[in-house]
């Protein structure tokens, strides 16, 4: 039994819907008096009714989990799945509504770096402050301070108030303190998305060492690359429940399948908010379709055919199409601009059909963003309108063309092949 670090049984967390807190005593009394007399609550927002107020929402619906010592457990899932709630309960920021957690060993939670940093204090003072908040005694910090300062790469500025630090330095210092905690269990919430690339690598290395050195790590992230690198086991949370528990690659697959949804072929952007208000004024993108498909799943050998419906509010001559392609995890893959352009007259509403070569995209799930733009004589791009929803599509390797592609090493783009142009025999 003693090799278990964390044991969670039937963990539930309930939140009340509607406004809680922030209401003044007076408002509370008013509402209570109105309800008592059967009148309408003067403090409810329009459209809200009594049914909604005070109704509850289960953020976690009974989680059972056992984490062994030395395990690096990744927690993934879409937004609102309950990942952060789980971490908050584990780090005792808030209490569960039901259920039990047993923890063996000291737990260090890094839900945020630099908690308790005060701008007026120097770097050194903040190391002590932050260390104490994270549960270190002064003695412990004393013995580690040199190593912390070295790790933070801020030795030169260590006696300067941190309000003069660049944001990068600030975060480096904060992470340095947190990573020197002597806790047996580390709970982390995407704190790695900080600092420059070199520092990120260093942090990952440090965390990897710790996991290898027998520490238990719980790590929440949307970045599948770091989950792959760091974790030995992974759970997928969805709507407050664990839907998968086990192998990291499989977990990522499960998450991706859920994330891409049904791979729709039709998207409608009518009436949706644009990223900037100017978009959609001269030209309006009504809808987007993948053509000739029931679901947006393509073989790498076929061409992707897509179409969109667009309405002109002015005469525009030179409209081009830009596609931005990303992986579902959010990594940028590339951008493509159409070689042709079209013109549209005021009052017209046309359907366009296009074809796109996807043979150099590796197998996997992608997202697409479409922008209609104009490249004027001065070489300046002017965007007219864009897809407001994320468009998902998936590429599967054709049976006849199966090369084992390892996206974790090779990325997502199949670059052009090299050719041998000369050979000098020796």
């Amino acid at each position, binding site marked *: *039994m*003693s090799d278990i670090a964390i*044991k969670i049984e039937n963990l539930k967390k309930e*939140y009340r819907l509607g406004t*809680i*807190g*922030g*209401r*003044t*005593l*007076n408002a*509370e009394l008013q509402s209570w008096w109105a309800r008592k007399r059967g009148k309408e609550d003067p403090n409810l927002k329009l459209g809200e009714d009594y049914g909604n107020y005070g109704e509850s929402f289960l953020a976690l619906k009974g989680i059972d989990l056992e984490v062994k010592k030395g395990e690096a457990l990744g927690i993934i899932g879409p937004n609102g799945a309950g990942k952060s709630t789980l971490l*908050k*309960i*584990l*780090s*005792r*920021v*808030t*209490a*569960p*509504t*039901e*259920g*039990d*957690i*047993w*923890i*063996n*060993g*000291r*737990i260090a*939670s890094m*839900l*945020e770096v630099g*908690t*308790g940093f*005060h701008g*007026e*204090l120097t770097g050194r*003072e903040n190391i*002590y*402050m932050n260390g*104490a*908040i*994270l*549960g*270190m*005694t*002064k003695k412990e910090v004393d013995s580690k301070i040199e190593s912390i300062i070295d790790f933070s790469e801020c030795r030169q500025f260590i006696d300067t108030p941190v309000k003069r630090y660049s944001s990068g330095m600030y975060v480096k210092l904060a992470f340095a303190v947190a990573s020197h905690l002597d806790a047996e269990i580390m709970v982390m919430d995407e704190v790695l998305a900080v600092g420059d690339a070199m520092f990120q690598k260093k942090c990952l290395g440090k965390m990897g060492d710790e996991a290898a050195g027998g520490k238990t790590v719980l790590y929440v992230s949307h970045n599948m690359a770091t989950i792959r690198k760091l974790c030995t086991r992974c759970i997928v949370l969805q709507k407050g429940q664990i839907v998968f528990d086990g192998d990291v690659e499989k977990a990522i697959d499960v998450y991706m399948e859920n994330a891409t949804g049904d791979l729709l072929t039709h998207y409608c952007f009518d009436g949706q908010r644009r990223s900037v208000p100017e978009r959609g004024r001269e030209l309006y993108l009504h809808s987007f379709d993948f053509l000739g498909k029931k679901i947006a799943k393509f073989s790498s050998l076929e061409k992707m055919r897509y179409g969109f419906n667009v309405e002109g509010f002015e005469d525009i001559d030179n409209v081009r199409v830009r596609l931005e392609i990303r992986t579902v995890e959010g990594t940028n893959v590339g951008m493509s601009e159409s070689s042709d352009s079209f013109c549209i007259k005021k009052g017209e509403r046309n359907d366009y059909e296009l074809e796109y070569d996807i043979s150099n995209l590796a197998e996997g799930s992608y997202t697409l963003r479409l922008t209609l733009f104009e490249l004027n004589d001065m070489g300046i791009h002017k965007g007219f309108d864009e897809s407001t929803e994320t468009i998902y599509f998936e590429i599967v390797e054709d049976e006849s063309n199966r090369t084992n592609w390892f996206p974790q090493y090779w990325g997502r783009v199949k670059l052009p092949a090299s050719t041998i142009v000369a050979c000098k025999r020796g």
Partner: protein
Amino acid sequence: MDFTTHIKAKNGWFDINLKELFQYRDLIILFVKRTYTTMYKQTILGPLWLILNPLITVSLYALVFGTVARLSTDGAPQFAFYLCSNAIWSFFAVCITETSTTFTANAAIMGKVYFPRLVMPISSVITAMLNMLIQLGILIIVMIGYVMSGIRFNITWTIMLVPVLIIQTGLLGLGCGIIVAALTTKYRDLVILVSFGVQLWMYASPVVYTFSQIPPKFIRFYLLNPMAPIITMWRNAILGTEGISGIYWGISWGITVAVLFIGIVLFSRIERTFMDTV
């Protein structure tokens, strides 16, 4: 099983882990230090304000209540009298106002990391106590000045009670403060009420006047105010002015303990879930 921590949905109604609180003593000290090092950054006079602040307040009291209103100071020199009263009262008042914002002012830290929440109010009380000791130092210097100019203070064995009175005031302030803190997580009105309440409370306590000026028929109600015996005994101990019956002090202690107890119960109930409501 040998698990070190057990997180459960509901705790007992009096669930304060004193051992854990003790383990975090370094954090308490650091919070106190932080308050001092950051308080007067980028001010010209800096820590001098710690001395100027009470001196200005006390001069105003002496002007308004002593010279204009001519309230009795029971034979003590006016300046020493008000300095003495203000030291203990401002300690108490700061305890309440500072601890009452524990949850709301520190939501950012508390929402991200766990430490015993009582660390915050306790460090506020300790900070206030240090400020009070500075005022006490000023008072001693002023009193030495008076003695050298020939004024006698009738100091007796009651001077030994000074530390006890300081501790009692701290506990009472902490108790009141954390009751308000627990309630402000839901009702922000109390934050505004606190500053009014503390001012009212000051006039209901013998800070600028003496206990003997209370009409006898009000004494019974007046004793519901636990600060009244404390302030009177405090002045008696330091300046040698009139004292008060030990029974009154006993009642005051009873109320102090009750308030602190209710405070801790409320606080330990709220601290577990306040992040969801604050």
